[in-house]
């Protein structure tokens, strides 16, 4: 993330994304696969660390091995095997949705994980239960813990979609896309950008 000044002099927080070039490595159709979809590949990968079946798959599309493959449905334009998608398909001042895997936070309590308030007071006889979840299931009724009760556990590392991020700038020479605001995941992670 960084920040840039707009023409009006406002300081805008923005994220820089390397978007493409993505290569179409497979086109799925109703006849052969039962549904319509397009498989896109991005980011170079060493030939040595590519398995033989995958090497054949990339050879079919006429490209070098790629690190990330993603299947997407409902493309507006017709794509053929080996087509290259670059950042040019995005326009400035339009809105995009971005999907990514959020940062892993490890085992977290209910206050961080579900936004519980914790116990209100630090004093007034209260002791060592400041961030506790409170009652779970009652003693006489219902005398059990309901399914899906929100408790402590692994947090983050989920698939998160952020909607309506404004495209500030498109730099086709370096395949860069700049959007306003933040996107899920750590630096250098993969994202899916949808128009």
């Amino acid at each position, binding site marked *: 993330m*960084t920040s840039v*000044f707009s*023409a009006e002099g406002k300081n805008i927080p923005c994220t820089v994304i390397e978007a493409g070039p993505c290569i179409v490595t497979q086109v799925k159709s109703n006849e052969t696969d039962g549904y319509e979809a397009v498989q896109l590949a991005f980011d170079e990968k060493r030939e040595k660390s590519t398995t033989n079946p995958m090497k054949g798959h990339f050879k079919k599309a006429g490209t070098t091995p790629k690190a990330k493959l993603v299947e997407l449905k409902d493309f507006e334009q017709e794509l053929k095997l080996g087509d290259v998608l670059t950042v040019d398909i995005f326009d400035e001042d339009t809105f995009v949705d971005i999907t990514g895997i959020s940062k892993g936070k490890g085992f977290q309590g209910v206050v961080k994980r579900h936004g519980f308030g914790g116990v209100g007071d630090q004093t007034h006889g209260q002791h060592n239960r400041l961030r506790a979840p409170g009652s779970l299931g009652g003693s006489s009724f219902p005398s059990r813990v309901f399914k899906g009760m929100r408790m402590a556990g692994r947090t983050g590392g989920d698939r998160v979609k952020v909607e309506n991020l404004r495209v500030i700038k498109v730099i086709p020479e*370096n395949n860069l896309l700049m959007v306003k605001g933040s996107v899920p995941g750590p630096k250098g992670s993969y994202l899916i950008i949808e128009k």
Partner: protein
Amino acid sequence: MDLMKVAEESFKTGVEIPEFGAGDTISVHYKIKEGNKERVQVFRGTVIQIKGSGNNKRFTVRKISNNVGIERIFPMNSPFIDKIEVNRKGKVRRKRIYYLRQLTGKKARIKEKRV
């Protein structure tokens, strides 16, 4: 990280900013919008500190106006900066000369650096 620089540089205003540091006296020509009119205001004072890096870099200028000390923070890459002039190079030992805030009158002078 190289690509971050490419993205940041595409937003540069093209105004050449001269080299200056703490203790220097500079004039900042700042564009001000009033309704539809735009005019340039000059803020002349001593640079107290330079803070931040990259697109986030900013500097603080201090001046005494009507016996009241005024400090103003300018972002280095602000599109409102028309021009920056370095009027005088000052000889100071620190990067952040906050001690200047406590000094007034003759004591608040800074020696000129001989080049």
